[in-house]
């Protein structure tokens, strides 16, 4: 399974809440350093499979783990594919 989508939050605290939610829901993921091309912030991000994107969105909304941004890499650039909450993650 290719973890081709990166899930980014504005704080590490939210990132780890999300990690716990994904783990408890049995959704495959890997915690990584935030790609610098997505954000100049230090901190963690979570890789998931694109096929799990919708399920993750629903999980984060249900758990109020907001805001979050979902990014997919294309041609060396990261494009936003979805957002949950008001801000860019």
């Amino acid at each position, binding site marked *: 399974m290719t973890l081709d989508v990166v899930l980014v939050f*504005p*704080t*590490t*605290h*939210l*990132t*780890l*809440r999300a990690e716990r939610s994904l783990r408890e829901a049995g959704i495959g993921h890997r*915690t990584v*350093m935030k790609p610098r091309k997505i954000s*100049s*912030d*230090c*901190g*963690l991000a979570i890789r998931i499979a694109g096929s799990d994107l919708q399920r993750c969105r629903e999980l984060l909304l249900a758990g109020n783990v907001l805001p979050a941004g979902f990014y997919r890499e294309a041609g060396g650039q990261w494009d936003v594919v979805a957002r949950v909450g008001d801000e860019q993650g």
Partner: protein
Amino acid sequence: MAERIIYLNNAATSWPKPEPVVNRVLWALKELNATPGRGGTAAASERVLFEAREVVAGFIGAGDSSRVIFTSNATAALNLAICGLLRSGDHVVTTSMDHNSVARPLARMEDTVGIEVSRVGADREGSVTADSILDAVRPHTALVILTHASNVTGTIQPVEEVGRRLRELEGKRPRLLVDAAQSAGILPIDVRVSGIDLLAVPGHKALYGPAGTGFLYIADDLVLDPLLEGGTGGRSTLRRQPDLLPERYESGTPNLPGIAGLAEAVKYVSRTGIDGIRRQESSLAAAVMEGLQDLPGVTLYGPCDPERQVAVISFRVDGLDPAEVSGFLEEVAGVQVRVGLHCSPFSHQTIGTYPEGTVRVSPGLFSTQEDIRALLDGLRQMLGMRRK
């Protein structure tokens, strides 16, 4: 000279620490090699921090663990609460049982920012009533500060009743800050049920965590000015401190081994059960008080009632400098207590022991009845020598 040390100064810091706490600190020192948020294998460190926050939040009944801000101790937590919340023209209600970690930041803000402080007088046992606190509240009162249990007399204040009645006030109600330095781990605390907006807690007293740890709980709808500004591990490009929690209030490298130990300590206290801890310490406090009351020339202060106080007991011996008493106890009987004003001059003014202060005895979870007998035997020995 005493051959072994009997430690009865747990109100200053608890000792010994439970074995799981010691082991967890050692584990963190050995295994966690990255500063949270700053590169490399930081995820493991971040998880320790996150899980500690979750454990603490659960312990105090806080819904959102991002509202738990780790500090170096209760003093830092109180300073963040007081200096972060108050503005020029604000009125504060506090009591005459304040520790200096409440009184001094308030004094500085009176002198520099321009706040007004009403200090409700406690009675000679160190008690205030909820009525007296509510009577002092005015339309522009921004903050009510209560010391949950006195570090001089152990007196327990009516936090739950004050919290409930403040919530019932119409209009813009004052916030409630509770100094839980002597109560966290002994008295049950639920911040949301009790209407506590700010809770300051040391990790190293009745929670049995390491020194250099503590936390401030901040209610969901409350924003404070941060006390420290600097690196937060995220949002580095912002000119000012980020708004999001917990980063807003936690700059710089955290005391990760300490916080790991604190989390383990909270779990230990939860497993042990604070009701059982309170019963045990109350039994020891009762033994101290009964023994002291039987000694000639000894005056006890505070409620002298284990139901109305935590296990903190202050006394004096007629005609003797409290420092002489504590010196004898330590050097001859091997009993460590604490003497003086206990960083709470207002409390001593309240109970009538200013400026000399008192000798303070504070048994803890690992104290025994044998320790109390050693204390009382030491005092009897000292009094006997004085008579001769």
